[in-house]
């Protein structure tokens, strides 16, 4: 991250400084959560909960330059917990899932702008991806992050990012073809 984050976090216990940090990352935090949970209300709840947890444990952050990757770990863990609670169909092998079942997840179509059938189907299909693959799609497509930024946030190499994107998109393609097969 940049010098601003450094300045923000030098006064770790200051609510005013933390406020600046929240204001800076609230939209990204909301979008990430929305990509994981698929609906506005839960996304708002999860993103705010992540900031609360971050505030409580900010003393554990050793390198101030890494605020966002550190915060992202808190947010993703909350989102993963949320997904595990909600998970029912995703645990089943793909060939046992019907296209109707795939369309019935809690990915709200109203979360996407300028809706059309293609966008809605892809959005629902993203809601069926497993957590690691969904994560990489969210960071790349909804946060528009570069491979380098993704690698930094996930504490992995660029090669791993490429590989995860390949398998994530391949899984997405398979889900979409199952959905289309049912029409």
């Amino acid at each position, binding site marked *: 991250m940049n010098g601003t984050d450094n300045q923000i976090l030098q006064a770790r216990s200051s609510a005013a400084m933390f406020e600046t940090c929240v204001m800076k990352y609230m939209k990204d935090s909301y979008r990430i959560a929305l990509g994981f949970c698929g609906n506005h209300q839960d996304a708002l709840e999860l993103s705010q909960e992540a900031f*609360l947890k971050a505030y409580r444990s900010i003393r554990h952050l050793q390198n101030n330059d890494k605020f966002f990757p*550190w915060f992202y770990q808190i947010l993703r863990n909350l989102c993963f917990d949320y997904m595990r609670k909600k998970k029912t169909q995703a645990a089943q092998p793909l060939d046992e899932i019907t296209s109707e079942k795939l369309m019935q997840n809690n990915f709200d179509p109203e979360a*996407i702008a300028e809706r059309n059938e293609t966008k809605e189907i892809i959005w629902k299909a993203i809601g069926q991806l497993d957590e690691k693959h969904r994560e990489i799609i969210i960071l790349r497509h909804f946060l528009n992050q570069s491979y380098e930024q993704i690698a930094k946030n996930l504490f992995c190499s660029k090669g791993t990012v490429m590989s995860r994107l390949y398998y994530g998109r391949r899984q997405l393609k398979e889900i979409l073809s199952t959905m289309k097969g049912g029409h």
Partner: protein
Amino acid sequence: MTCQDYKNLMMAYIDGELEAEAKKTFEEHLQSCKECSDEFKEFKQLKQHTDEIKFTEPEERIWEQYWQNVYNRTERATGWILFSIASILLLAYGGFKAIEAIIRDPSVGLILKAALLILIAGAAVLFVSVLRERIYFWKNDRYKDVRR
């Protein structure tokens, strides 16, 4: 390089993350490999469609109230911690006083007093057992010092 290596490069190519030289190598491979070429077209289309998905922006008031909501949560969390500590102290003190009163009361039967003392001893054993287990796991937790 195997086709699998090119598949990872395919993602970087689609996302505009490849250097000129790697881009050229990849394009040459596409011309000679039909399987990769077909897959490339499908992935390219999928990426275009996925990129078209944009989120509905929440109303401006949501962002205006966002910090206040986070702040309220931190404040309430602190309030709950203080409330819990005070409740535990008051309950412990009240409990101690109540037990003391029962034990000293000559009108209370011996059996009731003995049962009460056994109950307290049982609770104490359970508490020490759980506490010891927690301390043991905490000491042996290999990840407790892991910090990002």
